[in-house]
């Protein structure tokens, strides 16, 4: 019982904490991409592609947290 409770608390914490960093990171990525697009609209296409790449790499960390949530949730 105690172990189950610990696993459930850990599951909640795992995803909650994993979402903090990527949340800030994606904000920085998109913010700077918008700034770049406004400064150089002729580069907008290339900036957008790079922005999606950056989002994808950053987002992966939050998704690992989500996966960890399922693993811990299943362990409980």
């Amino acid at each position, binding site marked *: 019982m105690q172990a189950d409770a610990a696993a459930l608390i850990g599951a909640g914490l795992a995803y909650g904490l994993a979402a903090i960093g990527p949340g800030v990171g994606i904000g920085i990525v998109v913010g700077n991409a918008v700034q770049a697009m406004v400064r150089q609209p002729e580069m907008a296409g290339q900036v957008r*592609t790079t922005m999606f790449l950056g989002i994808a790499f950053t987002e992966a960390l939050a998704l690992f947290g989500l996966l960890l949530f399922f693993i811990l949730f299943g362990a409980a």
Partner: protein
Amino acid sequence: MTVPILAQIVEVPSNVNHLFDWPAVLPFGINRVVLLMFLATLATFLFLYIPVRTPRVVPSKMGVVVETLVNFVRNGIARDIIGPESAKYEWLLIPMFFWLLFLNLFEITPLIHFPVTSRMAIPAFLAGLVWVTFVFVGLKKHGLSYIKNSVIPPGVPKPLLVLVIPIDFLSTFVIRPISLAVRLFANMIAGHIMLAVFFLTTASYFVFEPKIVAFAIPLAFAIVITAFEIFVAVLQAYIFTLLTAVYIESSINVEH
């Protein structure tokens, strides 16, 4: 009178797995997921073949759509990322993009409502295919120096190599395929759970508390999230294809 019948329809899942487990309906363990995968394969084939079957000077309406999308993958993803050699990898990128697009869009297709890519087998298989492709391309182009060049970045001081080589090896050959598969899988699973939560909340309120103020709010959220999931489905197919192109490019030009 009708309320008890509705209460039977609104089945609250006891476990998250309940949303993703389907019983086998045919031999060889073929269940709904596998059938939907076959359907997506058929849809991809028909979508890419039927509208452009007969070459015409002025393409039909569907032909224009198909040509625009294929051109987007060919020029916007393959050629922009990989460069002049991109034509050699279109056999992988173009069908993969459309297959993933159909599999993801099943999430919000009426009467289907199941993202097939939320079962790990399909993203894992595709990520394995991508892994084999980019390692094969690198080995074929550079021989064994491909592995050496991809784990030793230029200009690193000698003592630091003890740290850098394991990290780079892990990030290139282990984390890459895993994160590629997990990104698609987790996005789809999260979207499906979000939709299920809001629609089940709407249905529960509709049955147990049939007032417009009670079920209008989750219903509005559900509709907004459905629109968001269309965006996510297209974006994830795009990102998966884009990252495949990026990995192949990094194998071709390994010595930066």
